[in-house]
């Protein structure tokens, strides 16, 4: 079942990459300079992404080695309660790098029993960027930054609950 899903995902990923490459070919024919600039930007972005990908790879490796499904189900599963919500919020806030680098780990944790709501909460709380808070305070003020961060944390919980209800209503 998991192997089949993985094969489907890899196939979909190859098609997606092919579509993006076609878009680049099209952009190159229309405006070569724009396509080259985009490629240069993407190369630079990929270099920045490598350490995060390495971190995620290590985390997946360690979680496969040490974190057993029983632990995930107890701490991030359906009955994990306040501990599960707190772990997802703190994990989301502390995680670094682009969001898509974390999809792999979250998928891995979900197959071990992490509940859907907590995945959505984790992803939402990635919006609160601790290292950037001083800069946000500089631009928009302390009160604004605090109020916004509190609302974002609260809405992350609502987001998680609703996403889980919607996704699991159909999938049973």
């Amino acid at each position, binding site marked *: 079942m998991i192997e089949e899903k993985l094969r489907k995902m890899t196939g979909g*990923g190859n098609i997606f*990459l092919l579509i993006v490459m076609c878009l680049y070919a099209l952009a190159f024919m229309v405006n070569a300079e724009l396509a080259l600039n985009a490629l240069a930007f993407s190369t630079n972005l990929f270099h920045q992404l490598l350490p995060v990908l390495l971190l995620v790879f290590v985390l997946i490796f360690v979680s496969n080695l040490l974190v057993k499904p029983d632990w995930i189900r107890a701490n991030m599963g359906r009955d994990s309660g306040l501990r599960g919500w707190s772990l997802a919020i703190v994990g989301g806030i502390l995680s670094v790098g682009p969001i898509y680098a974390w999809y792999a780990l979250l998928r891995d944790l979900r197959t071990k029993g992490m509940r859907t709501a907590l995945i959505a909460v984790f992803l939402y709380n990635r919006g609160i960027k601790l290292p950037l808070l001083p800069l946000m305070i500089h631009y928009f003020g302390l009160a604004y930054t605090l109020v916004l961060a509190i609302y974002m944390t609260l809405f992350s919980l609502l987001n998680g609950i609703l*996403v889980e209800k919607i996704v699991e209503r159909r999938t049973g």
Partner: protein
Amino acid sequence: MFVGMLPILVGVVLLTGLILELVPADRAAGWFGRNDMLDALIGATFGGIAAGHPLTSYVLGGELLANGISLIAVTALLVSWVTVGIVQFPAEALILGRRFALYRNLLCFGFSILIAMLTVSTLRLLG
């Protein structure tokens, strides 16, 4: 599993570069300025499409505020920028599921406007 995700990650990175070249952030300033609600909707939409570093959204938000654009619109842009991911959507859908990605992003989009209104109202109440 991780190797299987590489084409998706490479695709998203390439798409990010292309989108940023096609829609530079500084062009967004000209889209605002009609009314607060419409500006909030435009802010949330632009934030959802934008794929750059969040730092860019602060700089852009600061510029928009300085040009008289409402704080509701700027907040919707800031929140949507970091919670909605149109460019990352194909990767999210392939890895975490289409329904999950679709509804998560739709809810995040709606919440960005709601949070913007609540944040500004709260700040007004606080004085």
